[in-house]
Each structure stands twice: as structure tokens, then as C-alpha cells.
């Protein structure tokens, strides 16, 4: 069974290409508030999440609030 920690690490690796390489992408790094990701990159991250995690996301399954950090994202996805 995949642990939450595994999911978190996978998410960090998925998100990393979409943010400035100079940023230190920690689990609690503020993705939205820092402006590291936006609505445009969010779509690409969602597509990547579907492919890499083998899940099917529906319309508006994930909110901006859940995109606050990789950890909040992992928490939201672990219930999918």
C-alpha cells in the first residue's frame, strides 16, 4: 500500500518541473501564495498527477486551497 509519505514525495517530484528551479520545494512550501504556480501551471500539474498516480480527476476535484502546498495536495489526493 502506498503511504502518505510516498504520495508526498511523488507529488513533489511532479510539481518540481513546474516551479522556478531556484526554489527549495519543501512539503510545506506555499505554492499559491508565493506565486510559484498559477491557474495555467495548475492544469498541467493536474494532468501529470492523473498520469503518474493513475487516478482520474473530475471537474473541480481539487481546489486552490488544496494546492496551497505539496502536503495539502497529498492530503487531498490520498482520499481519492
Amino acid at each position: 500500500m502506498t503511504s502518505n509519505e510516498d504520495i508526498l514525495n511523488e507529488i513533489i517530484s511532479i510539481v518540481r518541473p513546474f516551479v522556478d528551479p531556484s526554489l527549495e520545494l519543501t512539503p510545506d512550501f506555499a505554492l499559491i501564495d508565493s506565486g510559484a504556480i498559477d491557474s495555467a501551471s495548475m492544469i498541467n500539474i493536474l494532468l501529470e498527477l492523473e498520469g503518474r498516480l493513475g487516478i482520474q480527476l473530475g471537474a473541480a476535484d481539487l481546489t486552490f486551497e488544496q494546492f496551497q502546498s505539496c502536503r495539502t495536495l497529498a492530503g487531498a489526493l490520498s482520499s481519492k
Partner: protein
Amino acid sequence: MAASVVQSASLRRRNGAATAISSRGKSYSVAEILKAAKALAQQFSQVRQNLAARIGLNPPCVLLPSSQPAAFLAALIAARMEGFISVPWRDAVIPPDAIADAVRPDLKLHFDEGVIDRCSVKMLDSDAFIGERHGDIIMMTSGSTGQPKGVALVLDQILLNALSAGAVMEIWKCTGWAIDIDVGLMSGLNHLLMAWQFDLPCHHLSAGGDDIYETTFSTGAVGFGGSPIQLVRMGNRLDSSCPVMMVSSGDFLMPSMIDQVLERFPDTLVHKLYGLTELGGRFCCMPHQFLLGRKESAGLPLPGFRARVSAETGVIEARSPLLTAGYYLPGGDFSPMKDGWFSTGDVGSIDADGVVTLNGRSNDVFKVGGEKVDRHTIEVELAPLLPAIDYCVLAVEHRLLGQCAALFVVDSGSGDLPKWAEIVAHLRSRLHPRFIPSLMYKVEGALPRLASGKIDRESLRSSHLSFQRLQ
């Protein structure tokens, strides 16, 4: 009964020799317009006899072509004098059939080029309108559906509205008024009647060469009325002379556009008008002296209007005797307007001074990732980056986000289109990340437009996947 404003406008003492309208290189004096109106009224009177069997007790309904503004104005006055219902018809761009289904006109006019005192009258063989007619002028609008419908109004009230808007802006400071809008549109009609009411020669710039702009504005204190993009383009077009006054109507004049105009012409008075056809023309006005401190606002309601914000929807509502009697709908039905407050469909606020500020159309606010976004905010912030490029932002359906913002930007092929990354960087420095359009598309040539001249949003929305993504 009070004398008709139209009749008093035509009967009151005027300088008959003064120019009323200049168009396509010809000028028409006040006396020529009024003489033509009387001649046309006689022609209308004769035609009326032939219509009795068709229309019963209803007044005749006539399509007035708008491509010749002087003939149009004379025919408008004549129709009012004879008790006809006028339907301004943009004959250069709209086939009569597109109007006929909704308003069921009985007649249409044709003017030969440069002739304003006689017209050929053609009886129309569409089904006659069933039921009672309302108002004496029907303005066509496509609304948000793209289906033309007629808005039943009263010409005297449109004239009063034009008078009060002109008074608030003190357009008597001008010696002439220039427009570049089809007078068959509400904003064009409003500008035409405003000039008429204030005895200003109205210069219709359409169909003139580029030199007509410089020439017109070098003749004195001429004002210009047009859509926001026309104001900016006018500024770019003129080399030396400048309009003494610029008045925006139609779409919303963004603060950045005001800055652009004033940077080029610091002495020009810029006024902003906000109106709706259903309200008989202009609803709010933000005069120059107040505009500079509140560039984002739509202005104060004009005399005769009350405004409030719906507590439920946040939409601005208006109440006025000028409100339309109702809509002539496709299929020939008439839908009466309910008494009371009219919903403008524009989300906004009203401050303690009564100043109305708009935040976009009610359906312009949507949720991206659970957070509210309004397309108007994005468009405003894009204006400095895309000063000479047509664009719009719309909400489109998306499999993963539910809805998202999509930017449609025209690629003219001149190489001035910013790259995707530049647009993102520009918006990121100004807006919350949720406002960044998730999709950005290039549109070749021009944005699709409805017959009213407004952007065909439904067409863009429904076919957005067919456009090429911006790189």
C-alpha cells in the same frame, strides 16, 4: 399634453444655416434636415393609406436605414411626426430578414446616395405583427444570446436622455461633435441626438479617408464620442490636432486606456458613459473632473435614474421612467417588462456618494479551483501589455477545473504578439495566481463579432478547442 420633444426640437428656433451633419464629404444644414423631414413625412402619410388592412389599429412600423446619417435623422423625425414606429436598421451590415422575425416591420426605406428628402418605400410581405405595439422606436440588440430582439422605447425619452448626458458633460464647450459609430446602434444614436440637441454639427467619420480625422479636429473644439478602443485608436491616429473632449460609451473604458489617451492629449476632457439600450441610452456618467480620481468607476446615475445593488446577486439594478416597455422577441412575440427595478446584469457596487462601480457582468464571475475569478479584472490588467491588440478573456469549460479563464488574443501577423510566458509574467506581477488564464489561444485575423459589433463570446466559448494555443 406636452409638446413632443422631437417636434419642439424641430420647431424651436434654430440657426437653419448651421451644419447639422457632415458625412462622406457632404454637409447638411439644420434647414435641409428639417425640410427633408417634412417631405418624408408627407410621403409617409400617403403610404399609411395602403397599410390599413395590414396593420389594423397599430401604427406602421418602418425600417430606417442608418448608413446615411443625415437621411436617417430626417426619416426619424418624419416617422415621429407621422406616428410611425421607427426601427433603426444597420442596412450596411444586417439583412432585413434578421430583424423581421422579431419586430415584423411593415415597410423599409431606401435612400439613394446623397439624397435625404425622398426615399423609395418598400412594403414588406412578412407576417404582420399580432397584438399591440409599444413605444415609437425599436432598437435592435443581440443581447448575450446572439438572437436579435427589439427593445421598445420612446424617442422623446431617448432625446431627453441624450440631453441630460450632454448637459452633465457640458458638451456645449465643443463647437462640433465627431463620431465613428453606426447611428443605428444605441450608442451611435445617442451621440447623434446629443449633437442635435446641443446644435453641434455632427461629423460622421466613417467611410472617410485617414485625412478626415486630422481635418475634422483641426477645425476647432471638436469632441469625439466612441467606444473605448476607438478612443485609443483615435489618439494613435492623430498627429497634431486633438479633440477637446472624448466620451467613451459602449464597452467599459479601462483606467489604463484613460491614461493612454491623457498621456497623448493631456488637455483633452475625458468623460465616461455607461448605458444600456433597455434604459433608453445612457444610465451613468463620470465627468472628467471626477473621473481622474476614480478611473475605475462607471459614474453617477443621470437625472431620472435610481440605482441599487441587489443584495442577493450583487448585480446593479436601475429604475427609471425611461425603461423599455419590453422586448420584441424572435417569432413575433412581445414580452412586456415587469414594473420596478431592471437588472443590468452587471455586478458592481455603489458608494456613499452614489457613484456606481462595475466589476463585470454577472456571468463574468466564475470559479476556478473553487475561487472566484472575474474576467474583467484580467482584461483590465492585460490592457497595458496589449495596447493595440484585440483580445478577450472568457470562462470556458474544463475537464479538470470545471471552469477556467481562457484568453483569446488576435494575431495580426505583425509580430507584436507577446509570448505565453510574457503574458503569464505580466499577470503574475499584478494578480493572484488564480487569475492567470489557464488557456491562451491565438485568433487569426479578428475576434468573431455579432451584428451589434460586440464580441461573439458564445462562438469563442463553444469552439475554443479549435484555436491554436499561444506558445
